């Protein structure tokens, strides 16, 4: 008996993808294996680690806790969609680089998506708010010290005047 399949249209990073998947296919797997957007990582598949966090209509959600079939009607942003239009790193990405906010890089995409939305919603987080912003993501390498610094740095970079008009849009705004 063949498994029932569904034709699903996913909108990811502004591009439209038509995929055929069974109902049980996790969004994380659909992104990684059907769409080949392997930047979204799977660290636990039970919603605790946050590595698979993507933005769904701009809001951070665990892609391992969503079914691909349930992600229709939404615009999804993965780590691959965070860089600015001119190809340069987004303020959050740049901040991670500036602050040594990553080591193995596996959890990083989940932090980047989460913080991108977090800074958009709260452009000037206090230290405590910066910590709270990333409180649902696990990292085994960095001890979080430099990730907290990166949140603060990202806020600085976001609020600072931009180099050129082409990067006026804050990273979350176009989501």
């Amino acid at each position, binding site marked *: 008996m063949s498994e029932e399949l569904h034709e699903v249209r996913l909108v990811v990073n502004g591009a439209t993808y038509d995929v055929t998947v069974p109902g049980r296919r996790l969004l994380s797997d659909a992104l990684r294996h059907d769409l080949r957007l392997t*930047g979204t990582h799977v660290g636990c598949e039970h919603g605790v680690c946050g590595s698979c966090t993507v933005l769904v209509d701009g809001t951070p959600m665990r892609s391992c806790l969503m079914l691909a079939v349930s992600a229709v009607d939404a615009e999804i942003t993965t780590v691959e969609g965070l860089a600015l239009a001119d190809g340069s790193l987004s303020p959050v990405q740049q901040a991670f680089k500036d602050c040594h906010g*990553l*080591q193995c*890089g596996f959890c990083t995409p989940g932090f980047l998506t989460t913080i991108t939305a977090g800074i958009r919603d709260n452009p000037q987080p206090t230290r405590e708010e910066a910590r709270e912003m990333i409180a649902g993501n*696990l990292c085994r390498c960095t001890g979080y010290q*430099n990730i907290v610094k990166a949140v603060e740095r990202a806020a600085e970079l976001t609020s600072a005047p931009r180099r050129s008009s082409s990067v006026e849009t804050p990273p979350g705004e176009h989501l």
Partner: protein
Amino acid sequence: MTTKLFGAKVPRVEDDRLLRGNGRYADDLMPGALESAVLRSPHAHARIVHIDVDAVLDCEGVHAVYTYEDLTGPMAAPLPLLIPHPALTHGRTQYALAKDEVNYVGEAIAFVVADDRYLAEDAIGKIKVDYEFLPPVVGIDNARKAERLVHDDVPGNIGARLEQNVGDAPAAIAAAPHRLELDLVIERSASTPMEGRAVVSRWDPDQARLQVWSSTQTSTGVRAAVAAQLGLDLGQVDVITPDVGGGFGVKINHPWPEELLVPLAAIALGRPVRFTEDRREHFISSAHERQQVQHIEVGFDDDGRLLGLDVEFWHDHGAYTPYGLIVPIITSTQLLGPYKPDNYRVVFESLYTNTVIVTPYRGAGRPQGVYAMERTMDAIAAYLKKDRTEIRATNFIQPDEFPYDHQLVFQDGRPLVYDSGDYPALLEKIKALVGWDEFEQFRTEMAAEGRRVGLGLACYVEGTGVGPYEGAHVQIETSGNVKVATGLTSQGQGHQTVFAQLVADVLGCSFEDIEIVTGDTRRMPYAVGTFASRAAVMSGSAIHLAATRAREKALRIAADALEADAADLEIVDGIVSVKGTTGPTISLGTLAVLSNPLRYAFDEVSKAATQFSVGRPEKPPVAEDDEPGLEGRDFYSPERSTFASGMHAVIVETDPDTAEIKILKYAVVHDCGHLINPMIVEGQIHGGVAQGVGGALYERMVYDESGQLLNASFMDFLMPYVTEVPESIDIDHLETPSPLNPLGIKGAGEAGVIPSAAVFAAAIEDAEGFPITTMPISPSELFELRRRHSVVEPTHAVVELVETTTPEEDSP
């Protein structure tokens, strides 16, 4: 101009790719590969009576199912015992797929390859296994009792017993003015990298060649094992380590069953096959560490000077011993830390239990050893009513005593000789950093607010840069780009950055022009692996040596071309010139062209190297003692390890009502010799400290008596989030260079996690006023301890309580 990069906080070259989601981890590779799943034993101890896979064979999308019966030749033999030791008299390893017995929940029984992981898991669910249950052995106490055996042919569940002696510790203790005993327990934890194990493999029938990508800490190790087990020539097998999502030790063990089964299936099916471990599997089928029961007897004089130290401990190595005795050997030797007891006896038994195997996890036996030694120091201080730092200072190896020979055999089979260090200086720094002398004042102030605080200190010495060797190959291309390969692997430590810093300094070329490749056996087939804080020391030194060779050759050719003495030349920004002149120059790229006499030009630049342009007619184009190409290759193989050291101090607050434990301050003083990149070293320390917080206060593997792991998920295995780690970690460095390597460096990767059990136990004990002898500790356990010790009023009279409870003075 070229500035020296050694010592600079150079931003990581790895980051851009990883930040864009362009990392390539094993599960990202080879789209369309078949996927696999493993049937794992649900029982801790059972005989396999029968396996029925019939229901799987007709499953749609299933390509193959393997059980032990399908394995032949070397694959049918037990997996290799990687590090044999004469004391490991009863070493045992598992089969790639269980033969007729399973010895832990999670042991691999069957392997299914299907179109995708979903279908593979469906198939796994359809395999029927009949078991005959055997009584499981769980926990060190049960293993020691040996009323039940894990392996029928291993009496007493004892895999190994190893004793080392320096002087006569029992006699020295008996004769000492004061004696104490301590019993300390430390429980299981695990590396738990964010990426589990993963392996993908492709067989190329046209070339009869196997390629394996594995999330491993040793590509050369996997390569040798795969070739041997699958009956292939080494030359037929490439193992490539892609991006690895953390290792922390667990990925040094190899070959995991799946590292063999995946290539086996790839060859048999003629299609790429992948295995990606899920989180639940990681808990029950990858390795754990840390569990030990330790008994310490110590004799000392009125000043607290160690006269004799006698340590006996029991190490739970789980169901099998693929990694030999490395962990308990490290405990037994590194336990001594910065101290010098004249008489030392250590004996351990390494015991079988029906639990997941134990292999090194960041720190690898050192956290247990430091826990033993530092709690002993605290107990002596409490007994003598002296300051804890004073007792330590009394026992330090002094700066003028290096090299210091402990007269023990270390984990590498070599003498335990410390190369350098300055422990008194470290102590001064940590005292200043944590505010040691001001703490009593702080305690009083907090007590006035009804708050309870405690201060802990722990010192360690860590053997790093263990042999046997690493190598490097440095090639300057005609473009001027520099390609560097070293064989050990990277799991996020920033090797590509620090190694490029070293090369740029030697070659005088641009940092951006350097590309570092790690863990690819096609590029560097001779290597050992990444463990024991060895990458910077071993590969760093090898790369430095290889780059130096390339530089020498470049200068030799340049000297010829510029008609100058090589000694007068310098390289700046990739251009060779005569120092202090504005005369002719030549680029490294052009030197690479000249280094390789050509018959055929392939572009404008290479015309300079063809036979009518280069060399002298009376000499061979390539000199007898030379070879073409501008390359350097070298290996670094030190006589022995280099010893880093450090001290941690923590101030904790314990809630009088809920027994919650809060970290108020965490301070680290660290000496890893010269720092290649302080930013990266500090990142390593941060991560280690967080892991240490986890290991001391949150993480443990909870087995029930039937051998079921009760918390095989991130919901219940409590890795710290940001909310559980200190808001800041204060770090200070001391740089005592190692005399053993050309760079004066020591390893730094594990240091952050090593003192955690000791330092937190000390601080909580200091806050609570009763002994903390089992780690990790949770609020619930602290609450139960409070009840046991019936603490009515918070007190910091550790002395009295320690005296009367744990360390009993021997009656004369």
